[in-house]
């Protein structure tokens, strides 16, 4: 019996340059079990032809580690913000349980994140997160002209609270899914607020605590959060983002009151 060649149908929103018009190209690629979206994009790069057989270019997208730790491959998969490396094709085609067969009649759609300027195809410019992290000084100031010696001790209780926040991979999915992160508000987004908390809790980093809290009270700061809680639902690394926003909301408020009376 001749087996019918099994294929996966993919539709990709593409754009050749930052200012070019976006177009959608369809692809049909051979099915293999246990693929993820990055391997699917790899298959297209091996044979860059659209569904009609027309020659095209390989899809541009950011990726690095391929194991959900570098944070580069966030994109819209079937309309939802996800990491391409940890988005499994079989699951996207309806095979959620082991042994279920994927529904190959379904089409997978890929598009760039919608709230960041497109560089090309699925690659977007996420510099805004880097700028925001700089604005809140999300670092420990340890550079000196001489040896500063050993840092202060960190209690395990503090370390346990900080560890989940240190898992942030800067993928910007929390910002993409946030209804308040947009051109009108210029909201800073959950990732930056969580990193400000992480470094405020660091025994050495806490020296910049007041500066971070003041930064987060600027326009586009923590006050723009509408507590829709999409960030914590969508975060691929399960960061306690709503808890961080709540804690930082209190700290920023207390700092503002303190500054009002004492500065």
């Amino acid at each position, binding site marked *: 019996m001749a087996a019918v060649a099994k294929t996966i149908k993919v539709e990709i929103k593409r754009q050749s340059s930052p200012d070019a018009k976006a177009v959608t190209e369809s692809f049909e690629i051979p099915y293999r079990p246990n693929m993820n979206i990055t391997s699917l994009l790899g298959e297209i790069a091996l044979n860059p032809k659209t569904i009609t057989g027309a020659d095209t270019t390989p899809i541009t997208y950011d990726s690095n580690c391929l194991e959900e730790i570098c944070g580069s491959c966030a994109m819209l998969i079937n309309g939802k913000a996800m990491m391409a490396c940890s988005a499994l094709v079989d699951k996207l085609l309806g095979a959620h349980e082991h042994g279920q067969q994927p529904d190959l009649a379904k089409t997978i759609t890929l598009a760039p994140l919608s709230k960041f300027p497109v560089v090309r195809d699925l690659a977007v410019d996420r510099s805004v997160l880097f700028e925001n992290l700089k604005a809140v000084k999300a670092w420990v100031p340890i550079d000196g002209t001489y040896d500063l010696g050993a840092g202060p001790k960190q209690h395990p209780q503090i370390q346990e609270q900080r560890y989940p926040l240190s898992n942030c991979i800067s993928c910007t999915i929390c910002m993409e899914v946030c209804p308040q992160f947009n051109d009108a*508000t210029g909201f800073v987004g959950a990732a930056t607020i969580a990193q400000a908390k992480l470094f405020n809790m660091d025994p050495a980093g806490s020296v910049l605590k007041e500066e971070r809290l003041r930064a987060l*009270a600027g326009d586009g*700061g923590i*006050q723009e959060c509408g507590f829709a809680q999409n960030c914590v639902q969508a975060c691929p690394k399960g960061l306690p983002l709503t808890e961080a926003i*709540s804690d930082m909301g209190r700290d*920023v*408020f207390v700092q503002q009151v303190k500054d009002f009376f004492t500065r």
Partner: protein
Amino acid sequence: MAAAAPPALPTKLKGVQPLRTGEGHSFLWRRLHSLSGIIPIGAFLVEHIVSNFETWNGPLAYAQQVKFLNSLPLVRILEWAFIFIPLAFHALYGVWIAFRGRASVNVYPWAGNWGYVMQRVTGIIALLYIGYHVWTQRFSGVSLPENPAYAFHKVQVELSNPWILAVYVIAMIATCWHFAYGIWLFAAKWGITPGNEARKKFGYVCAAGGTALCFLGLIAIYSVVWKYPNAPIPSMAPQPAGITEPAPVVVTPGTTNPSQPGQVQ
């Protein structure tokens, strides 16, 4: 030699702008907006619904409640300072907040996301309703501060139109929802309930409180529409604008107690 070329201007990023450290006062306004929803507006909402519950005891009881509220000291100043001005600020700033959000429940249909959208929808329902309600019941028709006896009748006439009755019921539910979820959001954003468990538990508290308040309000609507059909206007002395002094007591000289003339103790 010509001066060196000026340094390149910092290029403005495309897309969403980064955090504006030290710029603007939106933190203050947003926090004031959040607080004003509870004090004074939320407190007034509770007072209003509890007062309306007097309709359960009939037109006279309701009239006495209206008279009591309107005899509070500096009542017109209280009304503007603690109701109208904060309400106008909360409403208009709230509309501005709502129209700057980009709702995404079609893509991410999660409970919190629906809560976000509903808070904005119920806020706009409440704004439209309150605008109508304040105009019809406070600023047009018979003036209730001067004529509290007409309070029950005025509301009953208004609610005799089934469409307006439906508007009142929808607005009561929307307003109570907005208030209850607003308290929950306040606790979450101001860092009173940071933990997931704390937020969940407080969610039940807000839901119970909001439901109870809503029922009180709906019972008041029931009383006006069905419990006292064609209620008469209770006879009640009109409320004078100022204070009337009772007739002065004539004191007989050399008396300590006017009711016991001639006795000195």
